[in-house]
């Protein structure tokens, strides 16, 4: 085995320049693919994190009817026992955040606007999405205070500010009338523009009283360590819940349009990566083809003196894999270093303003998700295996005498 490895290793360096060019080409492809993917995924990870923390959560428990009919009538009973049960379902669950959500009319003394009202637990919400960091004025009310925080867009439209009174008018659970006056304690610049123009936060207990929904919530958001754990944790929670009326949804199920948008957006980088690998694949193939054809006579001699075809194929496979391993390792290390160096890329000018307008920081963050590194390595190994088919077929069909004459 050592001799075969030695033979493969030395064969690779028979033509040092050619090997280095091939390795460099693969390194470049791996580097370009990883950086491209890292930039895209970095942006998407921030976007997803932002979206799920302010809207659905990575996972959300709802009454089974709520998804079809978004009504307070389909809120569900929530108490400490349920909270403990969910937290115990999987160790990867970081926290659970209850919300009571409904549409109401928000009014000042002369005008009315449609609004999205969230009854929240201010402390849990803060831990979940650091919502207070978006306050532009005032503060969040305490858990039992009958006070509200408005999106700054909605406040502008209603020409209200901190200290003013907001009237909320709507329908509570099971058709009960719901209306109340609330002092505005703060204004936030909500990172999602549509929500900034419509959102009203109030503590969950006053919200439950207002909406005749004591001890009820419309959604229990589940926060987990990493987005890629979503499905596994969802399965664990489903198994732990012994209530047929409660369902566990993942964020792609709750926001399929976001996932589709991202998939569409990723199509171009994926196509570019594919083209890159096809080009590199042909370069790799060219090297292996040359390495094979220029050694046909040698192969003929090796078979003549008693080397088995399978062992000769093994040596060539090892040569192909060594080139791949060198290139992939170098590509991953270089891309890791480069990503560390450039993370995050700060935007400036109009681009920065446009991103800020969408509620994001004006930077392009890099993703360091391990799978993007391994997957690029896997692609190169797959290419190596495809490329290896040529020497494999050549050796299995090699006529010793013709090879010796070549």
């Amino acid at each position, binding site marked *: 085995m050592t*001799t075969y490895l*030695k*033979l493969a290793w*030395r*064969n690779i360096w*028979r033509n040092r320049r050619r090997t280095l060019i091939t390795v460099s080409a693969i390194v470049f492809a791996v580097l370009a693919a990883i950086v491209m993917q890292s930039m895209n995924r970095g942006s998407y990870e921030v976007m997803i994190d932002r979206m799920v923390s302010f809207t659905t959560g990575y996972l959300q428990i709802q009454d089974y009817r709520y998804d079809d009919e978004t009504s307070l009538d389909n809120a569900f009973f929530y108490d400490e026992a349920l909270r403990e049960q969910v937290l115990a379902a999987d160790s990867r669950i970081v926290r659970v955040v209850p919300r009571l959500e409904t549409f109401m009319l928000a009014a000042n003394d002369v005008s009315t606007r449609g609004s999205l009202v969230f009854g929240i637990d201010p402390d849990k919400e803060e831990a979940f999405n650091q919502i207070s960091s978006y306050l532009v004025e005032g503060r969040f009310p305490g858990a039992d205070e009958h006070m509200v925080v408005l999106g700054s867009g909605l406040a502008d439209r209603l020409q209200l500010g901190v200290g003013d009174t907001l009237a909320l008018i709507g329908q509570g659970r099971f058709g009960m009338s719901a209306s109340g006056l609330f002092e505005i304690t703060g204004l936030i610049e909500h990172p999602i523009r549509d929500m900034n123009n419509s959102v009203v936060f109030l503590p969950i207990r006053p919200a439950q009283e207002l909406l005749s929904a004591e001890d009820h919530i419309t959604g229990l958001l589940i926060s987990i360590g990493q987005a890629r754990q979503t499905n596994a944790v969802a399965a664990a929670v489903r198994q732990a819940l012994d209530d047929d009326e409660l369902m566990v949804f993942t964020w792609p199920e709750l926001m399929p349009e976001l996932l589709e948008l991202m998939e569409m957006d990723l199509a171009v980088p994926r196509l570019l990566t594919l083209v890159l690998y096809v080009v590199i694949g042909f370069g790799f193939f060219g090297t292996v083809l040359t390495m094979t054809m220029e050694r046909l*006579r*040698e192969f003929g*001699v*090796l*078979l*003549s*003196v*008693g*080397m*088995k*075809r399978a*062992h000769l194929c093994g040596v060539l496979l090892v040569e192909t894999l060594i080139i791949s391993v060198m290139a992939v390792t170098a590509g991953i290390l270089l891309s890791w270093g480069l990503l560390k160096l450039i993370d995050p890329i700060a935007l400036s000018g109009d681009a920065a303003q446009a991103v800020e307008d969408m509620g994001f920081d004006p930077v392009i963050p890099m993703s360091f998700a391990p799978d993007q590194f391994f997957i690029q390595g896997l692609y190169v190994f797959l290419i190596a295996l495809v490329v290896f088919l040529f020497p494999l077929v050549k050796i299995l069909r090699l006529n*010793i*005498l013709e090879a*010796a004459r070549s």
Partner: protein
Amino acid sequence: MTSAKTSVMTIVRTESLSRVYNPDTVPVHALRDVSIEIDEGEFTALRGPSGSGKTTLLNMIGGLDKPTEGKVFINDHEISNMKDGARIDFRLHNIGFVFQHYNLIPVFTAAENVAFIMMLQHRNKREIQERTDKLLRQVGLGDRQDARPAQLSGGQQQRVAVARALASEPRFILADEPTANLDTEAAMNLLDIMEKMNREQNITFVFSTHDQRVIDRARRVITMVDGAISQDETQHQS
């Protein structure tokens, strides 16, 4: 010169060997009904003009090619009907090859080229090392073990090739034009080594050659013309 054979044990036997290339298009009869026996300890040259069939016969005996008709026996094992894998294994343990162009593995040193054959035979490390050392000393290259083929002269490379051919302790060695690319001094030196091994260790050598220097040193000379044996004679050495 006589045509008598004085050997004890037959190593190579061919029966009515024929080889036709391109049988369906333009048939070329490379061998026609060749039957020979080569005994242990012979030092035999196959001679003849280009296209006479000597290399084809050598390839048949070496199990590198299959006859169109006829049979090849090595030590009573018929190799002409063996499958590819079995023939490779048979060659590894029974036949040594020396090629016109040396055909050493360029990335291996002289010692590694010799040791490689024994590694294929799964011999233990110590035995491989000792035998490699011994063989290279026998061919006069004890001090060039770590040299790669490119660092050796043609004559030295061919001597490494002889050591490699002997490494597997084969029944006999087939040498295809072994001196064709060597100058007179290197050729005579190589022949001295092979002759010495033949006399002292009773190793059987079969050459295909045009080289009169080889023919003069052979004890048996088989002359081929148009794929058939035209003469088979034993020479007495002075």
